[in-house]
């Protein structure tokens, strides 16, 4: 088991290196750098740019150095917690970001739990009651979850929450707590706000998972051993609990790897619409103002979050399924 985890962690390293290269290429792609456009903007306004400060920053972040040097510095900095400098905010990235990374993490985590909690019973119901009205209804709901863009879902839910309950559901906490340090009241405020984004973001992932769980379970239910168990007189519920459900459980954990990237994508867009205090709104602002170190560290964070999520799901799968940790088979 330890060997499996070790191997899995080691294979993660080249992936992470490649991701960091890709992110670095992306943040280097726009022509010019932030300072050039900043100085040009100030000159257009007829103001004097503080050239000393700019020169200092340029020097510190090695803008006159070749690209690979800057890459190594960037990655090296990230390894000990220096994510670079946000030019738009005039602060180190880690100060600008604050709680946002944590909140993104918490939001994703709660969404996964929600997805599981909803998809599991619905998937089982759909598979055991195939072609019933309940199955059709749930399938239809699921399809809507896949087809409706989640930013639209967010808007529509905001609208109805406002009209029906007089609630304002934007944001992730009451405005009083935004800059406050983490304390019990803040946590409670977050908890009372978090469920709406969780439902919206979880919708698409849940729908996909129900569909695949249903198909998987149906395959399992058609196998001869189920017929044998039934023929021997086991009650349907017991048959289901004893065998097919346990097989489906494997898939259930492996599937997180495939829905996690999509879920984090959806979370970003939804967060922008609902103006949550997560990475989404700040990422898009950073991208629009070419504040590239800030954008780069967000991209990097989201990618690492995904990779780690898949890692955790792979390890959980290996714990659950001896075929994976003993053989050289990969997940799924």
């Amino acid at each position, binding site marked *: 088991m330890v060997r499996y985890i070790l191997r899995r962690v080691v294979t993660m390293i080249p992936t992470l290196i490649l991701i960091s290269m890709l992110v670095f290429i992306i943040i280097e792609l726009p022509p010019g750098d932030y300072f050039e456009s900043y100085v040009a903007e100030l000159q257009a306004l007829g103001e004097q740019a503080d050239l000393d400060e700019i020169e200092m920053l340029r020097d510190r972040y090695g803008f006159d150095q070749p690209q690979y040097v800057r890459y190594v510095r960037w990655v090296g900095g990230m390894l000990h917690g220096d994510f670079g400098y946000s030019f738009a905010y005039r602060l180190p990235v880690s100060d600008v970001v604050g709680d946002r990374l944590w909140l993104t993490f918490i939001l994703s985590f709660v969404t996964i739990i929600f997805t599981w909690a909803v998809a599991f019973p619905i998937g089982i119901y759909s598979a055991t009651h195939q072609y019933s009205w309940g199955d059709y209804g749930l399938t239809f709901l699921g399809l809507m979850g896949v087809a409706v863009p989640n930013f639209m879902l967010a808007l529509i839910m905001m609208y109805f929450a406002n009209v029906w309950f007089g609630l304002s559901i934007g944001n992730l906490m009451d405005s009083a707590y935004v800059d406050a340090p983490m304390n019990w009241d803040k946590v409670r405020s977050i908890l009372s706000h978090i469920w709406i984004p969780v439902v919206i973001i979880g919708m698409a992932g849940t729908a996909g998972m129900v569909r695949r769980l249903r198909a998987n379970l149906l395959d399992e239910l058609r196998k001869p051993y189920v017929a044998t168990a039934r023929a021997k007189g086991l009650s349907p519920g017991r048959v289901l609990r004893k065998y097919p459900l346990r097989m489906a459980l494997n898939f259930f954990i492996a599937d997180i790897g495939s829905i996690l990237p999509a879920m984090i994508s959806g979370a970003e867009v939804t967060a922008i619409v609902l103006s949550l205090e997560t990475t989404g709104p700040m990422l898009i602002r950073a991208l629009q103002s070419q504040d590239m170190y800030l954008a780069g560290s967000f991209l990097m964070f*989201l990618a690492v979050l995904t990779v780690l999520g898949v890692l955790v799901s792979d390890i959980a799968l290996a714990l659950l399924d001896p075929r994976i940790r003993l053989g050289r088979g990969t997940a799924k």
Partner: protein
Amino acid sequence: MTAPPRADGLPDPGAPLAHYVSDAPFDPNLDDAGAAAVAEASQLRLMWWQFRRHRIAVVSLVFLLLLYTSTIFVEFLAPYHQDTRHLDDIYEPPQQVHLFHEGAFVGPFVYGRHMTLDMDNLRRVYDETGSRVDRLRFFCRGDPYLFWGQIPASLHLVCPAEGGTFFALGTDRLGRDVLSRMMYGARISLTIGLLGVTMSLVLGIVIGGLAGYHGGWFDAAVQRVTEVLQSIPSIPLWMALAAIIPVTWSPLLVYVGITLILGLLDWTGLARAVRSKLLSLREEDYVLAARLMGAGTGRIIGRHMVPGFMSHLIASATLTIPGMILGETALSFLGIGLRPPITSWGTMLTEARSVNIVAIYPWLIFPVLPVILVVLAFNFLGDGLRDAADPYH
């Protein structure tokens, strides 16, 4: 002499069993006719038979074909031009089409409207006086346009009455007809998915093909890159790349750029499918035969192996189109995808970006309906194609 039938439908004990005798002459080949048709049918025909059984997929196919055909004649079908502004009809709610006026049949018409300014709420209020009946005209002269940007014309399928208006889905901030803009937007939104998927299909076949056939270091490299691209959430990556597109680019270049971005990052799933298929097909005897006869790599992949799994590939490619359409919509909605003056469903939805707008002018979110329908249709179509892809099962 017939006894009343027993409850179980059987004759009385000892009585002969009633049975049916066909009078038709005996034809020994009759039974085989169906089987023979199946045996002789080409693979395409078999697939069609299989596909036809998936009702919703057929309906979706017809729906999508209609939609794509309609994008060719948008200028004629839309009641207005996409950029025509009606300064007197800003934020006008949808006009309902009626057939009967005061109990009498007059054909399709709308009630004329009168706009007043509500100075308390600072809103325009449109009331239907109910008296003026504006009958719609068909095959009529309306907004002039350049058909396909070339031929000047002004023929429309439906136009408002002389001096009247016809906004079936209301108007937007600049008094432009939402329905017409949705029809024009279909051109962009529908083609972007198709172009993107074509590109990722080509990339997927070439890259996956080489990786699967050659193996070795190239395969390992492709595997790594695929893994990396799949583990970065796509929307943030698209956002980052779309933000790089310079503001100075012309709308057409932006369109090409967004298509490239969508296609360039989406080939990984297809490449994986191609690779795994090739790995299994590589061991087949007919590939060995082709190689022994001296066929080159390109010919073996292109002529012998790709046709073997093309149908699977098209089915999975169909299932990736919805993601691209949703991606374009999301990017444009956030303001970093397509930009006005390009009209797509996503850029139209930008207008409905805040909840206040949705509350006051709810008809501005109508463009989300075609998005949902198209995404559903492609999903069903892909399901049907996937079932049909393997007709021998």
